[in-house]
Every structure is written in structure tokens, then in C-alpha cells.
């Protein structure tokens, strides 16, 4: 039940952020689907026994792959979809809890949540980078192939 709510919420949330970021037309729906699928990957890898940062990493790889494919098909920059699709992975609750515990002078929990926030942010960035480097290498191989 909780998972179902999360999937629906990540769909609606990605649509909301795609409106904030100024996407238009069918891009909005595609961003929503991407957001839900990305969270689905996160849930799946979590279910298969990955730790949270690892699950987030795989989800980020999937999200960037999805955005890159769409960007290629629709001939738009990759950034257009990327952030709306990945938004559900952003550790909003950890950041909030870190703030909250810091105010309550609960150092341990504040630190734990702050570290979790950074770890997840790093996992997302690494996921994006892996896709970026892969597509760069792919493009280079392709252009070399054309020259020969």
C-alpha cells in the first residue's frame, strides 16, 4: 500500500515539478511517467536487498538513461527531463529532519540525517555521471566509426 502511494505520488510530484521547470505539452506526461518508473527502480532494487544509497544510485542511472533516450528522440537537451524525473530521489525528508533535530539540539540524529542527505546526493550525482560518461564514450565510438 505504502509503495503504491509512493509510486502515484512520485508520478504526480514529477508532473508538478515539470510544470515548475517549464516543460510543455506531452513532455509533462513523459516526465511524470519517468518519475514514477525511477522510483519504481528504487523500490525494486531496495526489495532485492540493496542498501538505500545503492538503490538510489541505480534509480538515478535509470532516470538519466530515460531522460537521455527521450532527449535523443525529441531532439531536446537532456537537462529538460533529467531533474523532473529524478526529483523523487532528492532526500527532502533527511534534510528536513537534520534541520529539525539541529534545532532540538539532538546532535546525533541531526548529524546522522545530514550525512544521509549528503550520501544520497552523492549517489544521485554518481548515477548521472555514469550515464553521462557512457553516452560520451558511445558518441566518441560512433564518430570514430563514421570517420573510418
Amino acid at each position, binding site marked *: 500500500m*505504502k509503495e503504491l*502511494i*509512493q509510486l*502515484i*505520488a*512520485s*508520478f*504526480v*510530484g514529477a*508532473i*508538478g*515539478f*515539470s*510544470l*515548475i*521547470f*517549464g*516543460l*510543455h505539452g506531452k*513532455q509533462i506526461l513523459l516526465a511524470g511517467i519517468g518519475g514514477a518508473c525511477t522510483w519504481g527502480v528504487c523500490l525494486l532494487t531496495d526489495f532485492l536487498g540493496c542498501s538505500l544509497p545503492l538503490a538510489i544510485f541505480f534509480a538515478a542511472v535509470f532516470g538519466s538513461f530515460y531522460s537521455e533516450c527521450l532527449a535523443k528522440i525529441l*531532439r*531536446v*537537451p537532456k*537537462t*529538460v527531463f533529467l*531533474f523532473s524525473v*529524478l*526529483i*523523487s530521489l*532528492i*532526500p*527532502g*525528508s533527511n*534534510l*528536513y529532519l537534520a*534541520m*529539525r533535530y*539541529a*534545532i532540538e539540539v539532538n546532535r546525533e540524529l541531526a548529524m546522522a540525517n545530514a550525512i544521509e542527505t549528503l550520501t544520497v*546526493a*552523492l549517489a*544521485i*550525482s*554518481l548515477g*548521472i*555521471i555514469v550515464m*553521462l560518461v557512457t553516452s560520451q564514450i558511445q558518441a566518441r565510438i560512433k564518430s570514430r566509426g563514421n570517420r573510418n
Partner: protein
Amino acid sequence: MSLTSVREKDRMADAAGVVRLALDVGEQILLSGGEVGRVEDTVLRICTSYGAVRTDVFAITSLVFVTAVWENGEIVTQSRRIKEVGKCMRRLEELNSLSRRICTERPTLAEAEKAFSEIMKRSESSWVKVLIGSLLAATAYTAFFGGDLKDCLVAPFVAAVIFGSQFLTKKIGGNKFFSQALCSFLATAAASFAVAMHLGSSVDHIMIGCIMILIPGISVTHAVENLIIGDTIAGLISLSEALVIALALAGGFALSQSLFGGLLI
């Protein structure tokens, strides 16, 4: 003399105009949320397609700097100071296809400038869309992080408060730190108030959902990405900006919580 060589001459004569156009496009790509690497690439491509033999571009999130060398030895250097970076993917997309068109079709400078100003007019982002987006996102993420139905019903109102204060502080202008702190102050006050009136059941859940609109999560991710790619300065700048924003949010939240939190609940 053939037509192309006339156009070639026309291009050479207006080296400064070409660099200005390239910077206009680059600046707007940066302002609508494009990556630093894309900005550098775009400026380089536009200058090269109009005949620059060597172009050096340096872009960070607050500055674009370009020096172009033309075949006749003319050297043009221009720079742009970038203030407020936002997110408008529609504009980014259209500018990107404009720069692609400039490189393949090589329109005259006047034509390119006209197309550019048309894009700028056409792709103005509408505040209605941003408002609807904020309401949807806040509601969705309140549910996402475990809020119950009551919280989800309160969340859009808190999001509207956030949107209103963002709109207001943008109108007034002024300090970014202050406006972020004000947003989070008012949002927390609204959430505490709603919970005190028994409209919502948990301030935490409402705020976690609504704070997703405010937190610089995207900037942090973007910054770390820049750092890893090698755009170190751009990455460091956006990382520290994001940290400052997070501090501002925490400050506004803390003040609001200690004023209203104990008082009302």
C-alpha cells in the same frame, strides 16, 4: 563577387555583433538552467560558424567570458555578468534548437537576432503553471513521505503561501538569503497554524512535502555533477550557494518553530 563572399565580408565586418549574439544565446541558456558546459559549447559553435578562427570561452554560473579571434586578426572580447539563474526548460529547448539552426543554416546576423528575440518573447514562463506545479508537488510529496489525508489537504495551502511569498520577494527584489528564510518562516507558520486548528495532523509531514519546493536539492546534485565533470569553480559556486539556501531555510524554520511551535501545539 559571389554571394557567399559578400556574406563572408558582412560577417567579418560585424565580429563584435557575432560575439554579442553568441553571448546573448549563451547567457539565456545559463539563465534558463542549462549546464555550464552547454553554454561554453554553444558560444564556441556560434562564433566558429560565423568565421572565428579561434574562440576561447569560459563560463561559470555567474559569468560568461569569451574571446574570439577572426581571420583578419581582429580580436573581440566580451563578457556577461549573470545574476539570477532560474529554470525554464522550454526556453532552454528553443534556444538549443536556435543555436543548432545557426550552425547549420548560418542565417544573417539580423535574422538570428530576430529569431532570438522572438524566442525570448514566446517562451516567457507563466506563473499559473508554476503555481499549479507547486500545489501538485507539495501535495504529492506530503503523501510520498507518509503524510495522511488531512496533511495532504493542508499541503497545497502551505504551498500557496510559499508561492505567494516567493512572488512577493521577487517583486521587492532584495537579498536571496532573506527571501528564502522568509519563505520557510511563513510556510512553517502556516503549517503550525493548520495543525493547531486540527486541520492537519503533523507539521513534520506537511513541511517535508512543502520543503521539496524550496530545497536546493537539484542545485546540490547539479553542483556535485559539475565538480566530478571538472567544472570545478562552477560546481563550488553552486554548492556553496545551495548550502547558503539550506541555511536560510533552516533559519526561517527554526525561528518559526520556536515562535509558534510550542505556543500553538
